[in-house]
Structure formats: structure tokens, C-alpha cells
């Protein structure tokens, strides 16, 4: 295993300033995740799971403490570099799929590819990934609204993978799916991990967390 962890948090604190008073969402969290790990983050609602995932996903930066993603301290980054980080290093899979409604399944997957490579996909990579997650070329011509939840999540996984990210972040990936479909999605994710990809997943379902090789429990913004 790689000597330097792909994700490293050192005393990360996140405070939200609200009119009703400050809310400490993360309180001195320190942890590290090695390349190739499959980590589940669990905890009751309000425990800071989503905040932690947003920090690792470079959508937000810590109030204090250091957060290294792939060796870079994201606390020191501006919006432009954070955005580049999200494009190149991180693949995000959401509970609500979050596909772009205006684009077809194929275009949804191709979109980050175009943003990164500044050209249309001519290598067949988009089709290859779509096939890998079980979306054939007929389905890929449809808009998200014409696909089932399971199909949408497959497209979302393909989109997260298209730029070969170092880290895959999954926010309740099966939360909007029935058990059977959820299991299919988890099988795909598990397969990706066995190929050596780092997965970090937020869930409150112990059965789903069972897929992970390590579970981090968060309570009131601290690692329990």
C-alpha cells in the first residue's frame, strides 16, 4: 500500500455561522484513508457525515485544520482549484443521482470528459464505461427522466468514473433505490474497489456499510 494516504484530515473543524448561533459540524476530526480502501462513514443524522463528505469532495473547505487530498491541502485552495480538483481527482455519486436533465445519458457521462479534455470523446471511453455499468447504447440515448432510478444511478456512476478519479465519493448511493436495485449498485461499487479504486461512502444502512472494509463512526462531529 502507498505510504502517503490519499485522504488525510488533521484536526479538521467546520463551524457554520447561523443567525441562531454557531453550529460545530465537525469538531477536530483526524483520520487518514489509504489508496484502495473502501471506507464507510456512518452516524446518525446531524452527526456531520455529509459535511465531512463535502470537505473531502472539495465542495467546501475546513474552518480550521488541514485536509490533504492526494497530497494537496484543499484549505489553501481558491474556487478555481477546488473546481479542478472536483473535475480531475474526485468522482461524486449522489443519493438523488443528480444527472443533468437537459442532457442524454451519454452526454451526461461525456460532459466531465469534455470539461477535462476540451474535446469530444473519440476514444469510445464513454460507451465503454456505460457498458461496464450496464447501460447499453439504446438506453444511453435517453434523457435521465426517461430512465429508472437504478439506471440513473448507473449513469451517475459512469459519469463519476469517466475522468479516472483517484477517489470515488458516494453519498447514500442506494438511498433512493429499492433493495434489489441497491444491491446491484453496491455490486458495481464493490467491483470498482476490487479493481483498486478508493471508495468513501456515507450511509446509515448497516447492511450497505457491510460492503466496506472499514467503518468510521461519527457522533456529534467527532470520530467515535
Amino acid at each position: 500500500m502507498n505510504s502517503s494516504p490519499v485522504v488525510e484530515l488533521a484536526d479538521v473543524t467546520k463551524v457554520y455561522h447561523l443567525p441562531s448561533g454557531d453550529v460545530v459540524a465537525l469538531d477536530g476530526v483526524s483520520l487518514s484513508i489509504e489508496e484502495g480502501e473502501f471506507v464507510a462513514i456512518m452516524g446518525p443524522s446531524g452527526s456531520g457525515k455529509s459535511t465531512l463528505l463535502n470537505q473531502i469532495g472539495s465542495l467546501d473547505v475546513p474552518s480550521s485544520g488541514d485536509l490533504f487530498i492526494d497530497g494537496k491541502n484543499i484549505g489553501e485552495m481558491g474556487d478555481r482549484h477546488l473546481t479542478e480538483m472536483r473535475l480531475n481527482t474526485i468522482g461524486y455519486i449522489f443519493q438523488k443521482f443528480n444527472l443533468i436533465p437537459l442532457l442524454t445519458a451519454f452526454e451526461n457521462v461525456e460532459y466531465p470528459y469534455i470539461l477535462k479534455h476540451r474535446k469530444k470523446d473519440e476514444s469510445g471511453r464513454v460507451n465503454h464505461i456505460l457498458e461496464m455499468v450496464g447501460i447499453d447504447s439504446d438506453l444511453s440515448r435517453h434523457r435521465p427522466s426517461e430512465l429508472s432510478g437504478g439506471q440513473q444511478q448507473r449513469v451517475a456512476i459512469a459519469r463519476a468514473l469517466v475522468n479516472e478519479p483517484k477517489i470515488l465519493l458516494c453519498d447514500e448511493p442506494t438511498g433512493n433505490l429499492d433493495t434489489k436495485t441497491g444491491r446491484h449498485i453496491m455490486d458495481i461499487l464493490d467491483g470498482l474497489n476490487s479493481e483498486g479504486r478508493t471508495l468513501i461512502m456515507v450511509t446509515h444502512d448497516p447492511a450497505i456499510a457491510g460492503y466496506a472494509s472499514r467503518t468510521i463512526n461519527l457522533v456529534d462531529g467527532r470520530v467515535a
Partner: protein
Amino acid sequence: MIIKDIIFQLSIRSIRLHFLRSVLAALGIVIGVVAIASMGMMGANMTLSVTEELSSMADTLVVTAYSGGGGGGGMPGMGGGGDDDDYISQDEFDAVERIAAKYGTVYAIYQESDTIEVGDKKGRATMYGLDEDMFPGLFTLTEGAFPRSTNSVVVGPMLVERLDLKVGSKIEIGDPDEGSTTTVRVVGILEERGMSQDINSDMAIIGSEKLFTGIFGGEGEYDQVNIVLNDLDDTETVTDQIEDKLNRKEDTVTIQDSSRMIESITGTLSTMTIFVMAIAGISLLVAAVSIFNVMMMSVTERIREIGILRSIGTQKNEVRSMFLYESAILGVLGAVIGAVVSLTVGWLVVLAMVGSTEYFFAPASLVYVPFAMAIGTVTCILSGLYPAWSASNLDPIEALRAE
């Protein structure tokens, strides 16, 4: 660039998704562009046709007796009448002729207004008397011939219409109650000449000097001397020389230069055009508000989509250009449709207001189409600036949370 292309695609698809709303917003721009373009074209056509009408007499300098007071004198040709000093003497005429003869043609005019009678119809008309040799150069006939005998005259078309005159009609000049009358015969009818500074022939009876002095007397007391210049550039030279000769001690004559009148008329017209266009511009302002509203709605509706775009690595400026493209597409679409429509509407407006579309395709008139298009497009893009800016500055986490 391909990245522009995908962002552009998103804008187009968003417009297509909300087609009716977008069309209505663009319609505002169409109306604004049409209003500005057709008002501008109307002004341009009016200016062009008035200038054309007036420039036919731009080469004429009009010398009248100095009437004191404000120094300008009213419209020449309206005056005439009682004041004994209110004429140009034979000496003054000779002086003017000596100066101006080498720059153009100089002729003097007698003018009087009197009662006339044709058959049983009575009325008043202006009577001009001038050198017979000048007739062919000054007037164009629609019927008949120029006078060859002392009691024959030509008449203007409006007088013909009013009194039912024909070639061969007899006109009795003078009031029978006040003294003797003179009967003259119409030998020719003139083409319409429009209002002008030198001679207003449309409502007048024009005869020889001999006929005029025979009726009204006053030989050598001219009402007006006209100088038709060969070259417009000599206007100042001639004016200065006459001023120097006749007005050195005291003002005896007034010299009017038609080109100055044309300048002031076209100046007035263009002020009016700008004013009317500014009113038309208000419709663009309304359109801008509606575009602004549509863009804000588009941003609000797509907050979640913006959150997705940002979270998977779309830069702020790319989100910003997506919305700017959207308003630019609406603007260009509206401007292009507006341009096509304004060619039709402009044509009708010009036809209705100016009466002739002779100058419609002149560059000075058509230039208002691209001008209005540019204003419409720029207005549209400007009103898209704030919505685009606010979309790009959304917090991605907040945006993702939106329903």
C-alpha cells in the same frame, strides 16, 4: 471551441425547454428593434426627401430690401405691399448684377398681390413680373407655352385647380370697384415647384415685367433679386461682396442663403428623429426588464442543475457564460426577427408618414436596421449579466440541496 460548444448546447436546450417563455421574451426585443428601426428610417427618409426638395433651390441667393428691425426679414415673397422704401431700386439691382453676373444668373422680380376674377369666380392671387428671357430656365411647363405677348401669362398648378383654369382662360386682374382692371390670357400651366425661397409659383400668375408695370406701375422698384449661382462654393464670396458694396454705410439689402435654411430644417428633423427614437427606446427598456425576469426565473429554476454542474467540476465562468449565451441567443434571435419585420413595418411607416419610399433603400435609411439590431442585442446581453453573475456565484452545496 468544444467546451464552448457543450455549454452553448446547454443554453440552447434550456431555451427549447421553456420555448414559450423564451419566445415571449424575445418578442419584446423584436418590438423594440422594430420600433427603433422604423422610427429611425422614417426620420432618415423625411430628411432625405426634404433635403432633396429643398436643395433644388439651394443654389439661389435671394436679395430683398432691408426691412429694419431684427435684420432677418420674414419669408421673402410674402411681403410686397405699401411701404415705399421696401423695394430694391434700379441702382441697387445694377450693383448686384455687376458683382454677381460672373458667378451666375441674376434676375429681378416684381411681386404684388391683388384681386382676380375668372368668369364669376373671385379670389386673390400673387402676381409676379419678370424678364421674359428667364422663364424657360426657371419654370417647367405641363401644358401650353411661355408668354410671347404682353398680355399673356403662365399660372401655377394650384391656382389652376382652384379656379378651373385652362390654357386660353381669361383672368381679370384688379378690383373693378377700385379702378380699371386688366384682362390677361393664360397661355401655359406650370409644373408644381413646391415651396421655395425664390419664387412661389404654384399659386401665382406670372407675366412679363412690362405687363406687371403696366398694371401696378413702380418700374425699377423691384421686390426681390435672385441670384442663381453656378457653383455653390461661391455663396460666401458673392454674399460678402454685395454686403460690402450695398450695406457698408447702412443696411439697404438683406441677403438670404437657402443652404442655411436647409441646414436648419434638416437639423430640426434630426432632433425630432432622435426624440421619436428615444420614445421607441422605451419599448426596449420594457423588453430588457422582461429578459431580466426570464433569466432570473431560469436561474431560480435551475439552481439544482447549477449545483450539479459546479459539483462535478464546472468552473464559475463556464456557468456564467451558459446564462450569458442564453440571453445572447434571445437577443440575437429577437434582433434578427426584428430586422426582418422592421423592413416591412418601416416601409409602411415611411409610406404613411413621408408619402414616398423613394429613399427607403438609401444607406442613410437602412443603416437604422443594424443600428437597432445592435442596440437590441446589447440590451439583452446587459440584462442577462446580473442573473448570470448570480448563478455562477451560488454555493454548490446550497444549490445541490435545492428542490
